[in-house]
């Protein structure tokens, strides 16, 4: 038997260890983000940094880096943002429609060839997306679409189709068939029932599908780096890569981190607001098994 006195000590030791472990994990999680935010407001001579940046003097903080990133770089921030929104926005719209149709067909129909189709999209999606850049390069240059808006929007739209299609399908599976059947009894066509009954019920998963289709192109470098040559088509991802790597050794940490904050902010806010739902959507498949 363990004496009560000893048991209390064990309990205390356990609680202290738990807090220590969690504090270390939190410090690890926050450190880079803290570094990014603090550095973006500091005045740093080019390519020089010391640990002092981590303990900033409030009077020494400045928004000079933001001022440069937003208003003085070339190509202008407005250009980069517009291009990123055009590419990612179009890809999200097309990707969303494709995912909704695919999910609907797979969830609510038992058509001949369904099994084959699922294996087909599974097989095809195993080819790494980054490596499609190589054949794309030859296909799109022979079509004269390198360095054009269309030349990037087309490949971007296909990026998340399989994953999002399956995501939508799983979600639709959880909607009872009775709901669709009731709409059919009321005289709707199947297409009408899809658009007017199922789609509204699927708004959450469709939002997630659109977000996933958006975030890929928004942060894509592999394809844009090869496809875009003119400055006026540059995206935010090319912009931040360029600021980070203009000759190693002359990196300006203030500019890189300010750019990182501005570029991440919309995504971070979206995550924070919809966190519960995004985690649920992405872990559903994992937890369910």
């Amino acid at each position: 038997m363990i004496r009560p006195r000893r048991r209390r000590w064990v309990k205390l030791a356990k609680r202290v260890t738990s807090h220590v472990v969690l504090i270390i994990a939190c410090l690890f999680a926050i450190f880079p983000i803290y570094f990014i935010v603090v550095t973006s407001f500091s005045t740093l001579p080019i390519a020089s940094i010391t640990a002092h940046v981590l303990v900033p003097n409030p009077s020494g903080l400045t928004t000079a880096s933001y001022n440069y990133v937003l208003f003085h770089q070339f190509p202008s921030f407005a250009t980069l943002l517009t291009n990123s929104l055009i590419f990612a926005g179009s890809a999200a719209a097309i990707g969303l429609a494709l995912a909704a149709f695919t999910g609907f067909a797979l969830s609510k129909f038992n058509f001949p060839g369904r099994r084959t189709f699922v294996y087909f999209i599974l097989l095809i999606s195993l080819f790494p997306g980054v490596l499609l850049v190589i054949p794309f390069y030859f296909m799109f240059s022979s079509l004269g679409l390198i360095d054009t808006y269309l030349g990037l929007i087309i490949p971007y739209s296909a990026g998340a189709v399989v994953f999002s299609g399956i995501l939508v399908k799983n979600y639709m599976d959880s909607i009872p068939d009775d709901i669709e059947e009731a709409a059919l009894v009321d005289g709707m066509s199947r297409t009408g029932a899809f658009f007017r009954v199922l789609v509204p019920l699927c708004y959450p998963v469709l939002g997630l599908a659109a977000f996933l289709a958006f975030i890929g192109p928004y942060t894509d470098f592999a394809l844009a780096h090869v496809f875009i040559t003119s400055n006026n088509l540059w995206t935010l991802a090319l912009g931040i890569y360029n600021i980070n790597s203009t000759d190693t050794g002359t990196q300006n940490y203030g500019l890189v981190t300010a750019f990182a904050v501005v570029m991440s902010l919309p995504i971070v806010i979206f995550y924070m607001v919809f966190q519960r739902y995004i985690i649920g959507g992405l872990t559903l498949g994992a937890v369910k098994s």
Partner: protein
Amino acid sequence: MADLRDQTLSFRLRREWPAYLYLIPTVVVLLLLNAYPIAYTIYISLTDFGTGGRGSLINYHYIGFSNYVTAFTSTSSPFWTLVGNSFFWAGGCVALFLLVGLGLASVLNQPIRGKSVYRTLILLPWAFPAFITLLVWTSMWGYEYGIINEVLNSVGIHSVNWLLSSPTAAWSALFITNVWLSFPFYTVVFLATMQAIPKDLYEAASIDGAGSFSQFRRITLPYLMPTIIFVGLMGFLFTFNNFYPIYLITNGGPGLSTQIFITQSYSEAFGAHGASPLYSLAAMYSVLDFLIIILLTVVVIWRTDLTRNWLK
């Protein structure tokens, strides 16, 4: 829908044909933007595109499997290094993800003060797009001006040339960075699974005198096993082809010591050789990567019910 297996094909077709209309756009997109490019890649890998001297960038020829034969047999070929590195990278990362994820989830699963604060902070890295934080991590690992060395210096440790001095240092930087990117996801998944375990099991066990370690081993672990296998295998497949961490942080260096298939393929085509890219080799590494992933996926399907859910 109801089980229609006993109904005839023509009946099913009459009833289910609209599905094909809904699938037309997706099928067209997948054929043009996936199937065709994959076939094209396989074809390029069977030619001397880029490897047959200067002229081969304009005029290339079918040469059968000789790129593959050279890759498998030539002593100067990086093939076996890439196999080793790719598996080491994916296997090492997944082991760390599972370890950190399970550890933190079990700590967070007890009644502890400040739990929601801890949870929120641990989840933070997940909210940032990986490409952006990876760029910042790249500069954080810098030898002369990286913040990590500066912090080490301030506590009296000498700077480490993380990315260039040795394979061990480069791999450490990669593993730490990738754990930072991924551990929030694994922690959340395991925590969610743990919270679904019925509480009375633990109560019964503790009445029977089971300590917390044997409770973990006999209740928590068996309950988590399907999730661990599923998440671990999917994590392996994903990490095997996770391009940006290696491309941005070490770019395969020093030498070839952290190069994996996907980064090797990309740089054969768009990086290492400047004006004389070796497209056929790039295509070949893509095909080999694809084949390995197919094999691994067959294992996943065989070991888990991943596709059962999709097919039902």
